């Protein structure tokens, strides 16, 4: 298994390391932290059409239906609750974007910066088997295809789960930053049964 943490403020410190799933075998799962700006948008009462129009004008994205997300590979909008969406934007947009949205959406939606509270993990590889051990949802592409998202429990912590690529079982997990290390430990533990070797020294533990 390989774990790659981003250079800038990472919850995992210096966790960049190569495969540990045996001398020649591929990684069981790969986990990479992706720095991102995360903004929670909640439509004010009866203002959802206005929010949809404003979001379309700014990002050219439709507000996704329940349990789905919409993405143009730069910005991603994720449905997380009735009348509530999470916007994932490039990390360099940061505070500027939040302030811009706050003024543009005044009276239309509540805009809350979640960048420092949540952390995005990209998980790929044998995620089907690994996630089956710590998440109760049926993640088969026939039911949970590309473009589907869910707010659910993974390893007992609340996560936003995005099916990014159904054919290769690539998921994004958005988790509270303070639970990121726990989730990483749990995913590593879950992948051990499939041949992943846990290297405590490399994890600085």
């Amino acid at each position, binding site marked *: 298994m390989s774990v790659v943490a981003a250079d800038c403020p990472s919850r995992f410190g210096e966790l960049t390391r190569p495969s540990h799933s045996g001398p020649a075998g591929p990684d069981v799962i790969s986990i990479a932290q992706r720095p991102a700006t995360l903004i929670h948008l909640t439509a004010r009462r009866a203002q959802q059409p206005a929010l949809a129009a404003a979001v379309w004008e700014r990002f050219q994205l439709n507000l996704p239906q329940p349990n789905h997300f919409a993405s143009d590979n730069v910005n991603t909008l994720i449905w*997380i*609750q009735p009348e509530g969406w999470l916007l994932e934007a490039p990390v360099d947009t940061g505070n500027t974007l939040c302030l811009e949205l706050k003024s543009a959406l005044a009276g239309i939606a509540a805009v809350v910066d979640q960048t420092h509270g949540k952390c995005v993990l990209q998980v790929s590889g044998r995620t089907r088997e690994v996630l089956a051990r710590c998440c*109760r949802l049926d993640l088969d592409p026939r039911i949970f295809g590309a473009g589907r998202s869910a707010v*659910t429990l993974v390893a007992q912590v609340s996560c936003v789960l995005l099916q990014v690529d159904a054919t290769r079982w690539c998921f994004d997990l958005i988790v509270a930053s303070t639970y990121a290390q726990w989730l990483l430990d749990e995913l590593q533990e879950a992948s051990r049964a499939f041949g992943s070797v846990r290297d405590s020294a490399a994890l600085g533990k």
Partner: protein
Amino acid sequence: MLLIHCPYCGARAQDEFHYRGDANVERPAPHAGQKAFYDFVYARDNPRGWHVEWWHHYAGCRRWVKIERNTVTHEIRTVKGPTQDTR
């Protein structure tokens, strides 16, 4: 383990929810007296059979849902949003 069909998220396992009590309880009028308020705070029915109750989908959409559950068989007949009438 109950499988609860959240009206917003779909079928989810019970461990994403917290039980939040009897949904039949109604707050008495402000001057209804001490007995009425004692009952409102403490007294609950313990029915055998169908029961309407609040559950909070804390690990999903974070909405409260009103569930009609059979306390004998654990069958769930209806799941509705907080403002929808269950009966």
